[in-house]
């Protein structure tokens, strides 16, 4: 054991890659990744609820545009969407003269827009499935109580659909965390960006990428357990009873 500790100490002393400097890169990267993922998830979630309801609308002019939107954003790679927004925004006429340019010039906002649009499309479909699978009896019961369609939606369908959508949404959150690695392609210094920087600087692919992989793994498990906990709480009535 002591031999191991001295060995470890020596290893750390000889370590030229994981200095305080590089660890701070990873730290900043972690902040950027979490910000990017959290913001896009929250905005995407807020947008997805009305979209999911609209997706099931009787009116074609509401239903079809939403369908096309989700189909396109789910059917094409996120990288393409990011490139389109990141490179494309420069070519919007006159945008460089407006105040918008100040924020759009940096890659963070275009990436946030791309991620938000992407996750909103996936989340819309997840909710759509959950809304569709609401049991007929619940809706009929609501009608029998004299609730209007709007009330039924708000009081009965949405709350139960939210719960049913939870496992699939948990997967989407993890998917988004992993997808956010793409941000490093447009020069954002997120976790992967930090790893690429450390790799390029020290030419140490194993150290740089394995370390960042471990951080992602920890984040993934945190999200996983958080959603497991939520499911246990919110779906308690669906669990098999234990005596």
């Amino acid at each position: 054991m002591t031999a191991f500790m001295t060995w470890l100490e020596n290893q750390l002393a000889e370590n030229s890659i994981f200095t305080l400097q590089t660890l701070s890169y990873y730290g900043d990267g972690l902040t950027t990744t979490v910000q990017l993922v959290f913001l896009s998830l929250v905005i995407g979630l807020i947008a997805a609820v009305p979209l999911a309801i609209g997706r099931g609308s009787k009116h074609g002019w509401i239903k079809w545009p939403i369908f096309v939107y989700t189909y396109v954003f789910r059917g094409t790679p996120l990288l393409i969407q990011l490139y389109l927004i990141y490179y494309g925004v420069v070519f919007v006429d006159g945008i460089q003269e407006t105040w918008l340019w100040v924020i759009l010039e940096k890659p963070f906002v275009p990436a946030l827009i791309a991620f938000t649009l992407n996750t909103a499309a996936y989340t819309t479909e997840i909710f759509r499935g959950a809304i569709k699978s609401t049991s007929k009896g619940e809706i009929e019961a609501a009608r029998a109580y004299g609730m209007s369609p709007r009330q039924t939606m708000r009081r009965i369908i949405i709350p139960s659909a939210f719960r049913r959508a939870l496992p699939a949404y948990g997967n989407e959150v993890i998917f988004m965390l992993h997808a956010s690695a793409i941000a490093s392609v447009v020069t954002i210094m997120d976790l992967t960006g930090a790893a690429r920087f450390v790799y390029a600087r020290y030419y140490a692919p194993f150290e740089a990428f394995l370390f960042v992989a471990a951080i992602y793994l920890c984040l993934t498990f945190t999200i996983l357990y958080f959603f497991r906990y939520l499911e246990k709480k919110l779906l308690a009535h669906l669990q098999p009873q234990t005596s």
Partner: protein
Amino acid sequence: MIDLQGYGPRLIEGAGVTIQLAVLSLILAIILGLLTASAKMSRSWFAHRLATLYTTLIRGVPDLVLMMLFFFGGQIGVNMITDWLYYSFDIDIFVNINAFVAGVVTIGLIFGAYMGETFRGAFMAVDNGQIEAGKAYGMSDGLVFRRIRFPQMMRHALPGLSNNWMVLLKTTALVSVIGLSDMVRVASEASKATREPFTFMIIVALIYLLIASVSEWIFARLQKRYDIGYAEAD
């Protein structure tokens, strides 16, 4: 018509690379997935642990990070092995990892983990009585697998398989980052050169949608084929 400014042929070539990459990694992923599924279902404690470790690790790390690890780290790793072979045994070989192989291996490895879960669920959905019946007819294990377990498992696996394929197809776009000339790479080079990102990116997006729609159709036909004999039951 749309002016491709001479990038048309390269875009088609890029699309070819994308499709080859996707199909080859799908094949690798299916093989790995079948192996993982059987390891997870086996009685061997070690095989089970190994398969679980594999699926957990792969599914917890972003595709892009794994790809960079294999691509940038792969060469150094291979060099270390060949150096060791040279100094210890005087065997002189040189292996150059190219981006295409790295891409296929990485995507195959990633989706092998996902396929493993899909196949495991599908294998477990096949009624044990079917396998016993096959054995009672005197079929060998291999024959039972080929004639009974595999065709019936596929019926349950196809929806998951088709899902994985769609995600895999989109993941191939990432190889453009490690320097492989797939259609995304061509499109991004073309957009920078011509300063017309919309034209090229939208074309590539449409090609992706086209491939996705065609494969959706193929999967629907396959599903029909494997559903034979179950049509009334469902």
